[in-house]
């Protein structure tokens, strides 16, 4: 029984320039304590699909489909019901640690506020718990940092504070939207360690949105690859890296820098505009395996191995495809 089940999730934005189909019939599940990595290029709908689950998108977004969390229909939740899930059951960590804290309040108060709101702790208890949380996210001299303002913390520290705030109420799922993108590499590793640590110590399921396959290999149990608003491949992490089926996944893996491997290979072409859903494989214009059928019909997801699904007419690793 999975914790979160998303079924046929579609998100459109009604803009002045017409409709943008950001997410198209996306389905996925997250099990308890599992780490799901969602990868894809910028604008492929990774963030949008997860933000839509908690109603965090602007009003121009039209969301359809089903999302069930713990027996609750997330997309139908409104008002108090929705607010009691946000931050309490499902928590979000955003990409921009530099601006995600209110400059007018001490960090301790900002974490404490979440505790007091969701768990009804009093001021003293919230303070005590906040110190524990700052220690959990490995902020040195937590008791002192508590009384500092956001501008006195570095980016990495702020992201740790954001994570502390996110796990404050012991959520079932932590959604981390590119938590390390704005940080430099050494800090990234520390944050990823922390995320892993939190999963182990608190048993929180984690959905990690990233465009960094290295991060995914490091930390995820299962990987979902998105392209142009659609899921193109999903597999356990080892399987995905060993036998990538979709040519896009193959391309992503080939684009990971490896010392001594010669010039980096890129995926030719650009991400298509999402103004209309093409009646074809969205990747076809950039795909070395494209042929008449990929340009005339949409490939459905099919199972190619245990837990391994791919939406492609010509699946296989690049090596197999070349053979």
């Amino acid at each position: 029984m999975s914790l979160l089940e998303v079924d046929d999730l579609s998100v459109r934005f009604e803009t002045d320039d017409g409709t943008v189909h950001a997410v198209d019939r996306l389905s996925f599940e997250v099990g308890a304590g599992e780490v799901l990595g969602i990868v894809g290029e910028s604008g492929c709908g990774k963030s949008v699909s997860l933000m839509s689950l908690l109603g965090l998108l602007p009003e121009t977004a039209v969301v359809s489909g089903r999302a069930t969390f713990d027996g609750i229909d997330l997309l139908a939740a409104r008002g108090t019901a929705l607010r009691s899930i946000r931050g309490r059951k499902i928590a979000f960590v955003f990409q921009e640690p530099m601006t995600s804290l209110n400059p007018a309040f001490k960090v301790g108060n900002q974490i404490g506020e979440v505790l007091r709101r969701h768990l009804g702790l009093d001021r003293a208890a919230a303070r005590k718990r906040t110190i524990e949380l700052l220690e959990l996210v490995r902020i040195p001299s937590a008791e002192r940092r508590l009384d500092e303002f956001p501008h006195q913390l570095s980016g990495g520290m702020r992201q740790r504070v954001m994570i502390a705030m996110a796990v404050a109420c012991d959520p079932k799922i932590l959604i981390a939207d590119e938590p390390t993108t704005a940080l430099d590499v050494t800090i990234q590793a520390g944050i990823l360690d922390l995320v892993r640590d939190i999963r182990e110590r608190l048993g929180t399921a984690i959905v990690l949105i990233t465009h960094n396959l290295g991060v995914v290999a490091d930390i995820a149990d299962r990987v979902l690859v998105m392209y142009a608003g659609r899921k193109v491949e999903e597999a356990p992490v080892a399987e995905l890296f060993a036998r990538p089926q979709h040519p896009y996944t193959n391309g992503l893996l080939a684009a990971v820098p490896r010392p001594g491997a010669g010039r980096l290979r890129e995926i030719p072409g650009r991400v298509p505009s999402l103004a209309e859903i093409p009646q074809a494989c969205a990747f076809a214009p950039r795909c070395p395996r494209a042929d008449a059928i990929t340009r005339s019909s949409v490939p459905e997801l099919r199972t190619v191995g245990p837990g391994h699904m791919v939406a492609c007419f010509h699946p296989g690793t690049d090596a197999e495809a070349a053979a």
Partner: protein
Amino acid sequence: MSYVETSAVTINPRARRRRLLRKRFLRRPLAVAGLVVAIGFILMAILAPLIAPYSPSATDFNALLAKPSREHLLGTDELGRDVLSRIIWGSRASIEAGVLATGLAIAVGVPIGIVAGYFRGWPDTVIARLTDVLLAFPFLIVAVGLAAILGPSLTNATIALGIGATPVFIRIARGEALSLREEDYVRAAVANGASDVRIIVRHVVPNMTSTLIVQATIAIPAAIIGEAVLSFLGLGVQPPTPSWGVMLADAQSYLSQAPRLAVYPGLAIFFCSLSFNLLGDGLRDVFDPRTTR
């Protein structure tokens, strides 16, 4: 030395920011002068009964239109009333009108502006356009018109001035709310389950206070001048209660004989509003994050 200072700094961050702001403020002599003079006028208003040498309505018929002397430092008016005492007592009407009218404008304008800017939608459109229309009328014209409708008294003049100053505060609060609602920390608070009310109280209002403080120091002198104008026109403080505007009005008839009767209250209005203006300018620079000194 510098080590000691930095460690002290990290231990108490709020004190550090306060100290930084104070240092920036003290580096601006005009702002400091404005603060000192403004506080002086406020104290003068509060302590009027203690510091005024005479009652503002006491008449000395042996000294009508008297020149400044040791008994009457600024001379007397046509009824033999001590001008200095009347200026001291007159500051009460000015400060009261300035502070209360601005307070009224904030109390009415800021919530309206926040609702418009934070929730958007059609109420925002209506409020914003209405504010634009109101702002198209000069402040004093609105105040004079309202005071004429409400009837002459200091309270009504204050209400009229407050209402006249409200559109500016609506516009500022709306603009601030519009930009603050898009901040990442607001999005993070939403994702953490904060309600709209909580976001407004915790995230929107605290981050617009410095802008509001600056605007208040601009609105206070405008209201002080406004009170003088209304009283001059007979729409504010009623004689014999002293007010700088009333004194100016009374002085008109004696301009050729005793021009000082107009000069002294004029100078009082000038210095009082100037002090608040300088203070406001200084505060704006101090709060501006782009200020480097």
